[in-house]
Structure formats: C-alpha cells, structure tokens
C-alpha cells in the first residue's frame, strides 16, 4: 500500500477547507461529524493536516477530533482506493447468502474489510444494511447499487470499475 506516498504528495486546499468549515458549518463544533464527512468527501479520507487545521479553526483539541474520527466507522484515516465497495452484512442480506458474496470479494480482491488493493483500484468496506434489503444480497460500488447478487456475477461487476 502506498498511503505514505499519496499523503506526502497531497496538497491541501485551505480555501476549500475554509469554505466547508466556515460557510457550510459556521465554525460550529457541534457540526464536527458533518465537517469530517465533508472533508472525507473532498479527499476520500481524512488527511492528518486537515484535522490539525480543523482543530484550530473550531477550537477542539486534535485528540478529541481523532477520538471522533476513530469512533465512527465511516471515517478513514488512510487514503482509500479509487472505487469504494460497500458490502452489506445486514441481517436480511446475511440470511440470503451475503457472507458468501463477502468471501468471494475478499478472495478476488485479496483484501479484507477496510483495506485497499495494492493498485489502489478498490477499497473494501462493510456496512450493516443500506436499506435495500428487498434486493439482498447487495453491494454498493461508489454510488451504484447492485442487488440480488450471485457469486458468479461479482467478477463482471468489478470489471466495470477502473
């Protein structure tokens, strides 16, 4: 994994950060979780320098920001791949064979939950219910939902994402 490389080469756009923190969220520390979501949306993960900058801007200790960033499962402190695969491990998907879809993904990508493939193409994440249980088992790749999945369809779905 080449996380250190991409992090070092990352140029933070402080104007964009200011826009998020000041305009969208009024420098309000109660909005911390949503600010982190917006930062993650911009950079695909939470870059450390952005968190330090945020700490000063809203007056919350960095340690507390890290506490929040690690408590909630949607945040990633590591750079993620170009495509995010969310496999649903909710109950409805589980009883319809979601585990086997999960195994197939792990097998084909050679990564576990939260990890990124060495070519940076995919990050595998698991979620517990996306609310589309009627289509279970489901995976979401970026914003696309794929439902009523069979194991032998995984390969061709993945091939659609570069």
């Amino acid at each position, binding site marked *: 994994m080449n996380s250190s490389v991409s992090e070092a080469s990352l140029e933070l756009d402080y104007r964009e950060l200011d826009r998020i923190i000041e305009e969208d969220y009024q420098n*309000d*520390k*109660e*909005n*911390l*979780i*949503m600010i*982190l*979501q917006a930062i993650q949306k911009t950079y695909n993960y939470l870059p450390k320098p952005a968190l330090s900058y945020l700490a000063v801007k809203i007056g*919350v200790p960095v340690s*507390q920001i890290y*506490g*929040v960033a690690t*408590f*909630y*499962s*949607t*945040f990633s402190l590591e750079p993620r791949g170009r495509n995010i695969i969310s496999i649903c*491990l*909710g*109950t*409805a*998907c*589980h*009883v*319809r*064979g979601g585990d*086997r879809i999960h*195994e*197939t993904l792990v097998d084909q990508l050679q990564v576990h939950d939260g990890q990124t493939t060495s070519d940076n193409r995919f990050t595998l994440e698991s*979620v*517990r*219910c*996306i*609310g*589309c*249980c*009627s*289509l*279970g088992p*489901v995976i979401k790749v970026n914003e696309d*939902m794929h*439902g009523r999945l*069979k*194991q*032998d369809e995984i390969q061709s779905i993945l091939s659609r994402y570069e």
Partner: protein
Amino acid sequence: MKITSITDLDAIRQACFSRLYAPDGVKVNVGMASCGIAAGAQASYNRALQEFSTKPDISISQTGCIGFCEMEPLVEIVAPGKPRMMYHHLTEDKIAEAINGYLANDYHKKWILGQMRDPRNILEDDIANPQAPVTPAEGFPFLEDIPFYAKQTKIALRNCGYMDPDSIEEYIARKGYYAFLKALTQMTPADIIKNIKTSGLRGRGGGGFPTGIKWESCAKHSGDRYIICNADEGDPGAYMDRSILEGDPHSVLEGMLIAALAIGSKQGFFYVRNEYPLAVKRLITAIKEAEKAGLLGDNIAGTNFSFHVKISRGAGAFVCGESTALMSSLEGKVGRPRAKYVHTVEKGFRDGPSNLNNVETYANVPPIILKGGDWYASMGTANSKGTKVFSLVGKINNTGLVEVPMGINLKDIVFGIGGGVPRKKEFKAVQTGGPSGGCIPARLLDLPVDYQKLAEVGSIMGSGGMIVMDQDTCMVDVARYFLDFLKEESCGQCNPCREGIKQMLEILTSICQGNGKEGDIELLEELGAMIQRFSLCGLGTSAPNPVLTTILYFRNEYEAHIRDKKCPAGVCKALFHYEIDPEKCTGCGSCARKCPQEAITGDKKKPHSLDQSKCIKCGICYDTCKFDALVIR
C-alpha cells in the same frame, strides 16, 4: 404563498386535486425510493421522460415506495376516466411499451399488479373516492384485494407511494398540515398531549415507551426544550424509517411540529443515518418548502409560535441510536451512552429537556390529532394500539414494507401477506427486534403480534424488522452473526458488555467451527444472564437475546453442532459437505458448469459426482440444482 389558516390549506388542496386524482392527461408515477432506484426505477423514469416529454398530454412524476419492494420498479399510470394501473418490474425496456399500451386501452396483463380501487388516504374521508365513477378494467384485480395489501391499514405509510415527496402541495392535498393547524389554532398543549395519551401510541423505535407520557414529562421541565427525531435506523433489515423519510418527509415534520407545540420547543433536529443520502435530500427539500409556506421558521402561520429544524447525520455507529448516545453525537462528540439517572426529557441535548421519538412515531401523530386519540385506540390490542410497520425481508416471497393493525398474528404476516418462503423451502423462524430481539420458531406462528406477546416469547417488537428464515438458515450461525455485529458496535465503556459479548462470540465461533464442547450452551446462558444484568445501556442488556432465544427454541441445532459435529442447515463450513444424490441427479450439468473449482464432473444425462477434495463449499451448485439432487450431509 404563506399559509395562515385552514382556509389556505383548503385552497391548495382544491387546486392540487386534479394533479393527484384527475390529471389533464396521462400521468406516470414512478416509485423512486432508494431501493426502487437500485432496482432500475431511475432508468425507467429517464426513459419515460425521453420518450414522452415532448407529448403535451403525458406527465412523468416520482413517488415514494408503495411497499411491495419485491416488485420494483413499480410504476402507476393514471388518466382521467381510466383505471389507475400499477405495473410491476417495469424496467426501462418495458416502460414505453406499457405507456403506449395504456394509451390504447390495451393493458399489459403480465406486467400489471392491479388497479387501485381508491387512492385516498385515511384522512381524506371528507371527499368522495375520486376513482368511484370510473368503470374498472375487467380481468384485473384491485390492488387492495391482492393478498399483499388486503390485510394492511396504512396510517404511518398513508402517503408513501401515493404522491411526490418533494411537493408540499401534494402533501397538503392529502390532508397534510391540517392536523398541525388544528393543533396550532384550536388546541392547547394539554389537549394535544391528552389526545396522544388517549391514542395509546407507543414509541416505534424499539422501546415502546408511551409517547404521550414522554411528551408530558418533557413539557414539565424548564429550559430550552428540543424535539429530536431518531432516524438512525440501526436495526439491519428494517427500512421503514428510510421509506417514510423518502416517501413522505412532511408527515414526520408535521409530527415534530405538533410535538413542539405540545412541549413548547423552538428547535428540532433530525439525526439521520449516514447510509441514507436520499432521505436527507428529500428532508432538505421538505424543510425548505415548509419554510417557504410559512409552516416552519419564525412566527409560523402568523402566530408567535416559532420552530426551526436542522438535519444532522450519523457516521456509522449503531449505539448512536440509543437516546443519550444520539444526543452526545448531535453535539459533535463521540456517541457513548451515559447512565440515565437523569432522564433525557429533563436533561438531554445541550443539557436541555429533550424529546426523542422515532420517525414512524412522529408520522403517526398527525392522523391522531385529526381523527382523535379514540379513533387510533380503537385499533390494536389492549397494550398495543394502532398499527405497526414491518419490513418483511430475508427468505420470503413478497419482500416489502407492510403496515398492519397490532394484534394480527405472525402467520398472517409471513404467509398471508408475505406469501411464505420461496423455492418450496421449509419456514423455520422469524427474527424480530434486530440485534436486541429474538428468533420466533415456526410452531409459534399463531402468536398475535403486539409488544407484550413478543416479549412473552423472548423477543421484542423493536423497530419492526422481520427477517424470515428457512431450512437453509443455521440458527447457531444467526446467533453468532448478531454477536459479531454487537461486538463491533459495543462502545466498549462497560466491562460486561465489552468482554462478555466477546466471550460469547468466541464460544459461538468455536461451536460453528466444530470445536464446541459439552457445557458450552450452559456457559452461554450464564454469560448472557450476566451481560443482561450488568450492562449500562440497552445495547448490552439486550445483546444476549438472539443467543438465548435460539438456545430456547433451537437447542437441538446447537447440540447437533456440539455433539454430532453437524450443521443441519449447511451453513457452518466445517460441519457439513455437499453430496450428489445419484437417484435424483438427472445429469443436466448445470452445477458442473457453474462450479468455480471444477469439482463436479460426469457424463451427460448420467448422475454426476462431486470431488470433496476440490470443493470449497461455496454453495453455488446447491443453489443451482433444480432437482434437489444436491444434498447437505
């Protein structure tokens, strides 16, 4: 236009009547909740726009989810003087043909679920059924008569799938905001609370606490009071809150406005699960529209009542559905529950008196205010009034969202409405209440569903997820699954929950791997009792339920795993293998073609054989064989 009176609502309602019930030309309503979209509704919608947008007498519109999710994409086509036809599985390749057929009065029978007899909701009994003068199409069932809908009564879901969720006018046309204006102009806070108490409404988020009593105690405490909506919907397999927010966001907003009047609050919050971006989008629109109409903001409807709402989003922590954790998360902090020596109705968000209710709870409030608490209380059982929405998911034919009167029995839900288990498999159990609930076995199917009865059999109502399980579901694996979930989601601050769940999970994992020992079941029971007793919040105190109920009802499955080293359902990989029954195998070769390991071989039309040394037990062959020739041993 700012709305200041019921007369204003009447005017909008009249102006919007034709849009809903007697459109000028043909109106195509595409069900666009997120799972409909996932099933192809967006593509159908786009195709319809592309083909027909230049035709002046055809309009394409969106609605929420009408509940029969198995049949997505669902599309309704309506025209003056013609039947309202509901089409199922109407993907983009079919939609143009369906619309053209409808125009030519040549309906595609195969694609039609039914025709709607009466599109009004439960509040619109002051107008005649707009569909009554229309001669029904012959040979098409009424939607209301098909088994999936026949036993339903829609109160919380009254508008989902019947209107455009982004349109406040359509909400008003279906009698929306009448309850709020009635409460604002004709009722005192005490009247409102009395009505809610009379209705017997209990919280739909899981705990089942009486809503009226909660409001009353919150109103008693002084300080800046907050109205909060719990849209965290953590129970995996339950999606009614998402569906209501996506299909009828104003109903929840109106419920919160009424709560704010009753309790005396100026500020409300939605706490929405991170996985629900479309719900957030529809809520944002609803809030803006309500503000524009003067129904939200300062000096609402020209009175001195002001109420603002803000949307906050969760970030993937199940425990944040718990009231104290949720409020701490709303403050931008880590969501760890605290001991409730002081209740949140007294000291919650920002240490102010805070009233937290679930999405579905709020959606029930406007009908209660308009039709009266007694009306609501006339439905249901002694301890559970009104209706409840359930999501029927898992191994069930008619997956979907259903709203039924409390007290209906499980069999009516699973078999009557749900149509039973697919592929002629045997029904085994239904799981209710999510990770805090339990598994109810087939032999208790006559159980009437209400808060008390579910508790009596060791489960809970929870938020309404009903996960149906069949012969291929391993109950030990299900118990392991829930503990694995809870281990990940425990906030970790108290020992019994953190360590106890971990230990139970280790035991269950070893049972599933074939290393179970005599005494394991008893140890699980002991640990379960300890965790129930000493945990701080509801996550811990209810965590053992899935294990304890599966032990209670499916002890034989545990014993098969432990003593015989067998997983009868064929789930726990160390404890079974697949075999081909030569008597039943027709040699069709389907399984062999699909096997990723090339473990199955055989001559055409001769019984095939399976090489155990190559097999990875992926189950593809088992799911493929149409002749029941693949068996679990």
